[in-house]
């Protein structure tokens, strides 16, 4: 056939590819498609007249190349359209669509952080009851019958034998009564003392108790554990120190301080210019406490320490007044 012979299909294909590739809009692309692939195009007419296998292969090859090129250019143009629209109209500095989000209370966040540090050291978390017997809260902890903390002016009594726990230490007693050593546990929870509320006192407050009972536990183990804990909480540069103290249920008893994480030990208002911040009380478990719960102090030894959660929150986050924790103002809760 003349027509087949008359057309240079290589040139046709090049020309068509150039036209398709340079189309700048859907309309231009469509024009090119109609011109080179449409029903009236030279290619379509030639295809209709194909009689032999060889020309068929050649022409179909051209057609599929051109169809591919049209599809590719179509996708490119679509993308170009998005890009153009985006460049013209989006101010990426405008805030995104708001998502409603709540907040865990700061004290819960810190409680969890403390729990997680101890979980990592292989401790269990103990949930203790807040109402305790006088035996659990005082007697079993070998507290002196004359100790002022037992008085009605310091402690909330429900009846003669029942109190709102004044510390988390009764959980030591309960844990040791229900578990066989070794025991490694922390017990966070609410405690109660008859303190008139002010910026640093609340009749209800949160404490954490830590107890380790095992063979051969020493005061050095206490120091090491306290050190690991406070480094985890306040940074690896922290140091701790122990000072002599008195608690009925530990002997020796110590207070522990941590180097100030505000000034790094140089001295500032937070640490009262001493470089150290008092964190809590601790000690080697008094053998008589073990005897009270039926553990042989010749076989097992232990350490205990306790501290306040609010104090950590206040120091670390700069809250001046612990009453804020109980007021639940969304503007405060939402900061953490």
């Amino acid at each position, binding site marked *: 056939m003349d027509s087949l012979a008359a057309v240079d299909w290589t040139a046709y294909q090049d020309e068509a590819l150039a036209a398709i590739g340079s189309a700048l809009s859907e309309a231009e692309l469509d024009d090119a498609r109609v011109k080179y692939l449409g029903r009236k195009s030279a290619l379509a007419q030639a295809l209709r007249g194909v009689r032999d296998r060889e020309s068929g292969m050649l022409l179909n090859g051209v057609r599929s190349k051109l169809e591919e090129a049209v599809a590719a250019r179509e996708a490119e143009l679509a993308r170009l359209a998005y890009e153009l629209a985006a460049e013209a109209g989006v101010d990426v500095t405008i805030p995104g669509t708001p998502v*409603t*989000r*709540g*907040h*865990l209370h700061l*004290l*819960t966040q810190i409680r969890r952080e403390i729990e997680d540090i*101890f*979980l990592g050291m*292989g401790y269990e*978390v103990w*949930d203790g*009851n*807040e*109402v305790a017997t006088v035996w659990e809260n005082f007697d079993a902890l070998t507290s*002196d019958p*004359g100790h*002022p903390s037992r*008085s*009605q002016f310091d402690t*909330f*009594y*429900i009846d003669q*034998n029942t109190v709102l726990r004044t510390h988390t230490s009764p959980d030591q007693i309960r844990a040791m009564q229900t578990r066989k050593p*070794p025991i*490694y546990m922390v017990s966070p929870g*609410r405690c109660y003392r*008859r303190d*008139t509320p002010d910026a640093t006192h609340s*009749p*209800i407050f949160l404490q954490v108790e830590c107890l380790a009972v095992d*063979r*051969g536990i*020493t*005061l*050095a*183990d206490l*120091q*090491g*554990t306290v*050190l690991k804990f406070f480094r985890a909480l306040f940074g690896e540069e922290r140091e701790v*120190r*122990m*000072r*002599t103290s008195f608690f009925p249920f530990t*002997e*020796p008893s*110590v207070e522990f301080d941590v180097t100030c994480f505000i000034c790094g030990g140089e001295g500032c208002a937070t640490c009262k210019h001493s470089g150290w911040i008092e964190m809590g009380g601790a000690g*080697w478990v*008094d*053998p008589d406490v073990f005897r009270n719960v039926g553990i042989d102090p010749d076989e097992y*030894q232990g350490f205990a320490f306790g501290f306040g959660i609010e104090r950590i929150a206040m120091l670390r986050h700069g809250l001046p007044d612990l009453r804020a*924790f*109980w*007021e*639940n*103002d*969304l*503007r405060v*809760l939402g900061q953490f």
Partner: protein
Amino acid sequence: MKVPVSWLREYVDFDLPIEELARRLVFTSCEVDRVVRRGAPGGDNYEYFVVGKVLEADKHPNADKLQLTKIDVGSGEPRSIVCGAWNFGAGATVAVVLPGGVMPGGEFTIEKRKLRGEVSEGMILSERELELGQDHGGIMVLSDDLTPGTPLADVLPLGDDILEIETLYNRPDLTSIYGIAREVAALLETDLRAMPGKEPVRAGDEPVTITVEDLERCPRYIGRLFRDVQLGESPAWLKARLMGAGMRPISNVVDITNYVMLALGSPLHAFDYDKLAGNRIVVRRARPGEKLETLDGTMRELDPEDLVIADAEKPIAIGGVMGGGNTEVSDDTKNVLLEAANFEPLTVLRSGERHRMRTESQTRWEKGVDAEVAGPAATYASQLLVELAGARWTGEREVRGEIPAPPVIAFRPGYTNDVLGLEVPEDEQRDRLGRLGFGVDPDWTVHTPTWRRRDVPRDIDVVEEVARFRLEHVPATLPVRQEMFGRLTHEQRLRRQVEDVLVGAGLYEAYTYSLQATDPDPNAIELPVPLSSQQRVLRTTLAIGLLGAAQHNIDMGNTDIALFEVAHVYLPPGPVPEERWRLGGIVEGDFFKAKGIVEAVFDALHIEPTFERAKLRKEFVVGATVQSGWVGTYGPLELDGLWSAFELDLAELFAEVPERILYRDVITYPPLRLDLAFVLDEGVPAGELMAAARKAAGEELRDVRFLSDYRGDPIPAGKKSVAIAVAFQSPERTLTDEDAGRLRGSIVQALAERFGAELRS
């Protein structure tokens, strides 16, 4: 306790700076709150404080209330000084501060200046200005034999450093200067001087009558009689010491009892002997109806549990707490009976509580004072009464009950190392214990000194005595674990999950008080002695606290308030309630807002909630129960707007959590969805309709969802149309149209039978 350092140095020598001593005591012995300066700043400043002789003293020409004086201060021209006091004249010897001198407190420097036209070159000092006493009567007149120009510091205690310490409960021996000196000596490994006090010459042998009826509560009583006591002011050094220690000087006799108490730790009391009926002392329980006006001027109704000091007729003191006005030492006291005794801690504690009193002596007795120190205290006070009040000691009687012997302990120095995790050499242990007053036999039998009898009865207590001096050296190790396993319990993990779901749902976590003013449960446990009427009852629900938190947020102008709390409630009966973890929430909005949150919690825990309409407490207008709790909408409240709340018991809720979630094939074959609308009686809850549909559909059912609840045209009155969407899916095959017809049929039939519901076409 406030410790004047000059006083401490009387009993122990030390070279290190006081701040360093304070720092080290903090590790070994007691809290040191701070070191403060009493009196004038020391050093060069003392050069401005001199003895002066008044050469002339006349009225100020321009001021009626002032004197104009000329004072010889030993060097240079006599100084003219204007003075407001009139209790002296020419010839008097006085204390002068010259221009440049800094006054006590460190803020005020004396300058040469004109006062009403006359130059004043310094100031004539009163006791009060030097913090040596309370005398407001005028300036201090000194002894005439002093030479003008003598440094005042040689004559008077111009200033002192004061250690402010807090003693620990178990260390009553540290409520005395001598006790602290002993601690310093042990800390610095230096020598402690002998206890102060030298028995004066006995000037007579008068009988003193003392009867102790209750030797358990008063195991020791020494009474000493002093005649011809010259009552007056104490010397400046003694007053300065008392003031430095935080006590007010009163009179020489009273000051001496306080001074000796501070020095040795055993409180003393002085009675006016001539006011003792029958000239006798009886230590006994108070009798019913007896009263005593104590030295603070309060009339006290005595309790038979009170231990009293009485004379032949009446109580004259509450033992160990406070003396009575009826036998108080006063200006015309001539003869004094000195009490040096020992009282049992609990007796004093209970009397103090009963009468709501807090005195210096009481705080010492409460902790347990060494009965043996009563003797040295009596001796030292006697010496001072003779030396400073010109008294004659004419009689003594001592009554002594059973006083427990101090402990003797079999000790093993290796125990110290076992406890500390630090090797403390045996020699060091022996030396330290010795300096603290412990006897240590060659075989390590340890004898506790009397003043540590209560605190150091066992070997572990001996360990502490050695250990506390080595705390700075204890290494940091970790326990060598036999086993190691730490994880949250199932319930603890679920609790965290619930909290996180609620935070994700936009709620803020609140902490509210477990004690509240009222509780809906009439049997809720009440505190017999609450701190305030606002914190009286242990709550049985979190709802009230959350309402309060919502109210506070409204008051603060906050919006979009949605709060939750996870905390204990305390279920009666008492005295030991059942404590349960609860989840409570409050949101501004209607019932469905709260319900949606509860559904989210159930969904997170994979529990299918079943809500049933229920009458909640009267403050709720809409209410429903759900497994483990309730959801409700409040009626009109003090809070503006519409508020809904919920509360779930977490243990009950968690009990329904499936042990594990099994995979269902929702991928292989497509689901078949049907929307169905039924017309039925208005009274049938949609939840029941859906539950019935679910039951009828069988195991191929995947999901039933509520679509709408419509009433009105064209639905007849009393009826409603409820539309639901159901989805079926089989893990084994593609469900066909035929299956759809069958499943729809079984639902339609079940709902028709159960509720008379008709399928709308």
